[in-house]
């Protein structure tokens, strides 16, 4: 008994000893990393010359934080995690009957999404709801829709696409140009923008059919950049980097619109007070329906021959070809379908912003969308939605954290740290859950019995 206690104590001591050593090491490394870039700041003086400002205090705080973090991780977190993993390995596998909440959670989630604006308006009033419906609701749903669209290409067909934002741009500019030049309605231009994007999807698809894996990735990236550079430089049509402004708003099928000066303004038609919130709420439902459409089409397509062919292509291209599947059409339909939803989202984006510029279609957007797809667990619609809420909602919340100003002083702007934290979150989530938030999925086709497939067995495909 006494012996057991003493060995435990020795173990704890060595544990602390390692933790301290690790912490010192981490401190040294972080000192090396930050000494020049944090310790010194390059600033311009009055004569526009660069001078160095010393910030050794910040450097010391950062190094100490790293050391403390490393110490806590090695001394406390790691043993706890190890113990938990050991306990899980020991525990017998018990089949748990999923609760009613779990069984119906898709329906509940959809219901919740439909009620969201109502709840928000009830809680904070019409004017206060603007921010919540727009920044959180619409913003997140756009990314959900884009990620679901990209999921068709990456998650289902296994074609790595790093230039998805190009189709988003095509959709946005199609709507922006046609609506402001010819005054066509959103409801005509929505399918037109989708078709235009799908057309570009096929145009891109043709040359890259022969490419696999990373070559495909880099060509799609190049394609995305080409589209953006053409938009910047083709000034006669696209107005260059200044962008297009004054894009018409969406109308409610021509019955009423959201233009205060118009005789058909919703307030006048329905006899209610003027407010900017109606348009936002309308847009919220619009993007919600568009996203639902994407999900619905994806689910249905997966049961159709073409969807099965996509998944077969992802798992094994050679087997796919030997079984007589036309890989050319399969890949092209995947590109075109994914691109079409990107185009829909793009035209919605243009209508919502009322302004488009090439700034919105940089590679970073493609990267964010791809990150959402992968973090969500490729192929899983629910996981992707969760990932979008976490990543986009998380960075949007940072904008709201004004109380941090009280902690760090008035010069502190949380927005500045938004993308820094976003990037770090991508790394941390990926290392923590390499298979994404929803790591398993129901198989589309199965023999004899339906078993959940662990995502570890899902190949990402090689194009």
């Amino acid at each position: 008994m006494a012996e057991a206690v003493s060995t435990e104590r020795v173990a704890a001591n060595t544990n602390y000893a390692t933790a301290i050593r690790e912490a010192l090491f981490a401190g040294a490394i972080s000192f090396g990393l930050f000494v020049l870039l944090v310790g010194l700041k390059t600033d311009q003086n009055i004569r526009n010359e660069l001078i160095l400002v010393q910030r050794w205090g910040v450097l010391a705080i950062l190094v100490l934080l790293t050391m403390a973090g490393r110490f806590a991780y090695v001394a406390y977190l790691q043993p706890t995690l190890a113990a938990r993993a050991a306990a899980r390995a020991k525990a017998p596998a018990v089949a748990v009957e999923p609760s009613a909440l779990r069984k119906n959670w898709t329906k509940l989630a959809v219901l919740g999404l439909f009620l969201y604006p109502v709840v928000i308006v009830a809680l904070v009033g019409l004017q206060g709801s603007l921010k919540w419906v727009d920044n959180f609701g619409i913003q997140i749903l756009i990314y959900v829709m884009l990620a679901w669209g990209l999921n068709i290409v990456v998650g289902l067909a296994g074609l790595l696409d790093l230039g998805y934002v190009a189709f988003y741009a095509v959709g946005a500019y199609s709507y922006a140009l046609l609506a402001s030049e010819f005054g066509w309605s959103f409801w005509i231009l929505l399918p037109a923008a989708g078709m235009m994007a799908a057309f570009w999807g096929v145009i891109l698809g043709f040359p890259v059919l022969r490419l696999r894996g990373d070559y495909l990735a880099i060509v799609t990236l190049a394609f995305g950049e080409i589209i953006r550079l053409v938009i910047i430089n083709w000034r006669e049509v696209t107005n260059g980097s200044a962008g297009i402004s004054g894009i018409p708003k969406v109308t409610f099928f021509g019955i009423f619109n959201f233009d205060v000066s118009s005789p058909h303004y919703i307030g006048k038609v329905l006899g209610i007070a003027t407010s900017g919130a109606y348009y936002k709420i309308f847009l919220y439902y619009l993007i919600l329906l568009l996203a639902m459409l994407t999900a619905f089409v994806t689910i249905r397509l997966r049961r159709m021959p073409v969807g099965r062919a996509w998944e077969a292509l992802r798992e094994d291209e050679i087997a796919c070809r030997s079984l007589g599947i036309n890989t050319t059409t399969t890949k092209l339909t995947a590109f075109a379908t994914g691109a079409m939803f990107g185009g829909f989202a793009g035209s919605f984006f243009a209508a919502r912003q009322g302004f488009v510029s090439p700034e919105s279609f940089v590679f970073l957007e493609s990267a964010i969308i791809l990150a959402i797809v992968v973090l969500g667990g490729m192929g899983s619609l629910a996981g992707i939605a969760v990932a979008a809420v976490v990543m986009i909602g998380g960075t949007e919340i940072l904008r709201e954290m004004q109380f941090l100003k009280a902690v760090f002083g008035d010069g502190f702007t949380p927005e500045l740290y938004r993308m820094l934290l976003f990037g770090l979150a991508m790394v941390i989530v990926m290392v923590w859950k390499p298979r994404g938030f929803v790591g398993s999925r129901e198989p589309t086709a199965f023999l004899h019995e339906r078993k959940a497939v662990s995502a570890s067995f899902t190949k990402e495909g090689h194009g």
Partner: protein
Amino acid sequence: MQYFVQQLINGLTLGSIYGLIAIGYTMVYGIIGMINFAHGDIFMIGAFTALIVFLILGAVFYSVPVVIALLVMMIVAMLLTSLYNWTIEKVAYRPLRGSFRLAPLITAIGMSIALSNFVQVTQGPRNKPIPPMVSQVYNIGGISVSLKQIIIVIVTVSLLAIFWYVVNRTSLGRAQRACEQDRKMAALLGIDVDRTISITFIMGAALAAVAGTLFLMYYGVVVFSDGFVPGVKAFTAAVLGGIGSIPGAVVGGLMIGFIESMWSAYFSIDYKDVAAFSILAIVLIFLPSGILGRPEVEKV
């Protein structure tokens, strides 16, 4: 003709910088099969480190000979940038080794976003111009060659020579090539695979840091977002040359440099990047594994 040769020299200078960055991409790809998206930002960190060292030198000493200043900038940048790449590999890529292929790609993109925003937060979002370090221009038969260009080409060539020696003649290089061919077999034969991979990242970062220093010297300005465009172009160069092949990276870098300078000289400067990317797409359609790459063998 003179104009053409002039553009050839400009292209050679640009291509040298791209080539140096591209080697980092291609080596990492060859050894662990991942696109190290953060490599462009490693290059930017190298340029920023060089900038800060330049300012320190200016503040501490009244005047420093240019050669020594450049050397100090390069060495400090190489050391610090290597430390960055080493840490990143350890923190973000190593835990995901053996995971599916997209996982390290996503962490690399995350790291790239984090690094450029880290520099934006710590150093500010504005352009950082420095006074010109080297300004001599020689006129040889109507063609003007600046000393900057000569330095860039000389540094690149000598680094490539050292690099070629390390990869082809030392036991470290042999270990790297072994890991590239078959990591498991290399481990069985007693090669410390983790260490070899770490060293590969360090070597790639050191070359990128030199490219960053040269970039700073050539253009005299650096900004936090400078990692992306040269990074993508260098990666394009690596793919163009055949990813995984080190001579391919150099050839690809030079090609991208030539395409860019020729296109801006004879057609339009606005569309020079479009030209580089389009040529990449066209080359890959006809040579799907790049110019010097080994064709991928399909095994059933």
